[in-house]
């Protein structure tokens, strides 16, 4: 306590001196960019995110192995110069599976986030602006969807329609639009009170224009943040589902599917390279997305002090 006090006093004295002598910093900086730059975590997040993304997209550049190629002669080899992450039970190169798997996982995650955002934003904007029966119905509908634990609803639907990548994205969108719908709707409700909207209405401007050209851009900040964080959420969900064997069909390499091997206690104990690297990659990727999302939120939030 005492030490902290003294440090604080000393800092104040320094600032006072600088003020009296006119040596304080006079530069005017662009607040938003500066804050983002200063947020080291966001920067680190951005870098890690870019690395993983680029390596996945450009997978052929980083590995010459085919993620699906079975090679029964090279089963369960531990990491070596030849196979950076070793091989799995069917002799497939794990590193290649992680790289190519990334493509699918990220695609599913981002695609679902975009789809859910699209539906959520459209419904939220219309509902928030128009109100009435339409809004109440959609609100009820979202409550219904959100009362289910998401994974249970997803699994329920999977059991009904079967596993495929397309199905999975559809199901994710169907179960995930609720959150962004709510957020958009509440933003719209508050923007609706603003005077410029009243003015537009008074001038009898087309409601569609009012909604999408004038009101929506003001809500874009949080929407983008939401898409970012939703992507992370969907990637985690896909991983969980595939880990259970109920996500993307096991033939296709995804991060979750690779982790599926860890279902076996034996693998857990003895063949760590089959699941540990993948898990770390997923964690790093999602972590970096969260850092970026956080940074976006911090720098676009006007209530924060610079």
């Amino acid at each position, binding site marked *: 306590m005492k030490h902290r006090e003294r440090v604080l006093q000393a800092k104040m004295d320094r600032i006072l001196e600088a003020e009296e002598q006119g040596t304080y910093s006079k530069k005017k900086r662009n607040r938003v960019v500066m804050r983002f730059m200063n947020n080291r975590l966001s920067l680190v997040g951005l870098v890690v995110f870019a690395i993983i993304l680029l390596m996945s997209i450009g997978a052929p550049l980083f590995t010459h192995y085919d993620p699906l190629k079975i090679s029964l002669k090279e089963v369960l080899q531990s990491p070596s110069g030849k196979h950076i992450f070793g091989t799995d039970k069917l002799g497939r190169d794990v590193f290649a599976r992680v790289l190519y798997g990334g493509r699918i996982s990220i695609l599913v995650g981002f695609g679902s986030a975009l789809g859910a955002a699209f539906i959520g934003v459209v419904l939220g904007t219309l509902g928030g602006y128009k109100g009435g029966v339409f809004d109440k119905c959609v609100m009820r509908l979202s409550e219904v969807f959100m009362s289910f634990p998401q994974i249970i609803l997803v699994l329920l639907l999977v059991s009904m329609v079967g596993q495929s990548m397309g199905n999975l994205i559809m199901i994710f969108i169907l179960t995930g639009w609720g959150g962004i719908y709510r957020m958009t709707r509440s933003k719209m409700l508050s923007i609706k009170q603003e005077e410029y909207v009243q003015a537009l209405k008074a001038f009898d401007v087309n409601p569609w224009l009012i909604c999408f050209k004038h009101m929506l851009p003001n809500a874009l900040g949080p929407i983008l943040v939401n898409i970012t964080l939703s992507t992370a959420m969907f990637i985690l969900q896909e991983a969980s589902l595939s880990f259970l064997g109920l996500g993307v069909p096991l033939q296709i390499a995804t991060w979750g599917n690779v982790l599926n091997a860890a279902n076996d206690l034996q693998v857990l104990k003895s063949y760590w390279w089959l699941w540990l690297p993948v898990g770390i990659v*997923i964690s790093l990727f999602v972590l970096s997305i969260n850092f970026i999302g956080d940074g976006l939120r911090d720098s676009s939030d006007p209530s924060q002090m610079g």
Partner: protein
Amino acid sequence: MVSYIIRRLLTLIPMLLIMTFLIFLGLEMTPGDAVSFLAGPEAMANMTQEQLAALRESMGLNDSFLVRYFRWLGNMCKGDFGYSLTSGVPIKTIIAERLPATLELSLAALLISTILGTILGLLSAMKRDQPVDRILTVAGMVGVSIPEFFFGLVFLLVFSINLGWFPVGGRLRPEYTVYWDHMKNLFLPSIVLGLSMTAGVMRYTRSSMLDTINKDYVKTARSKGLPEWRINLLHGFRVALAPVVVLVGFRLPMLIGGSVVIEQIFQWPGIGNEFLQAVRSQNYPLVMMIALLSVFMVLLASFLIDIITALLDPRVQLD
């Protein structure tokens, strides 16, 4: 307060009805003969086609949709949930056997995460921008980023398999005599299940607390000559808690859903595990019933959370 409770209950009931309706719809849409899960497998095995047709008639399976729906609803209220497609065991029995384990796990996770989360969040806010705060903030972000099951796998490996501090999965062992004996089985899974909730609660408590500390009434409290601890706890923390409780309410479905995966990893004999098997074997009656049950749990828990929020912040009762 009482009127608030009644109002909340009244909004709950239509929701429950809608849910049952949807589940019934789902049951109707899935393949499978309704007789088999309504009558039980032994009955099925011993019947001819005519007898089955007659049975269908007598069970009213040829009646209209709505009639069947209400009959099904009525049956449920009497405790008849139908039969499992694969094993023929009455679903009621399955649920009765397995629900307590899941409840135990979920409650433990909820308790740990809210208590730990709020305390850490409070600490983080009080020591803002100091090393403790920064570490906790990053830890929080890591907590929401690592897939829960991965975390579970690592913990299982390190603490159960390698270090041997905890049993490797399962819930009860023959040698357990008292209830508390299996606490060491409960420990790991509940920590893992509560992980993401803990991180979320911690972050939200921190930001809620920082918000509250700057409020005018805190300054008023200080001007009354009250000690700092009282100001922070009774005027700051207490008010900051209400939004956090609301957040917990929002995240409850995730906690209940998370048990599906966690029970798998730790071989915990609960409803989640059962659900997974049912999905894998397309045991629709069981799938639907457990889904309905989970929704019911979510709605009930939300209701309780609303009451707690109203107790913490009386302004809530206004709406």
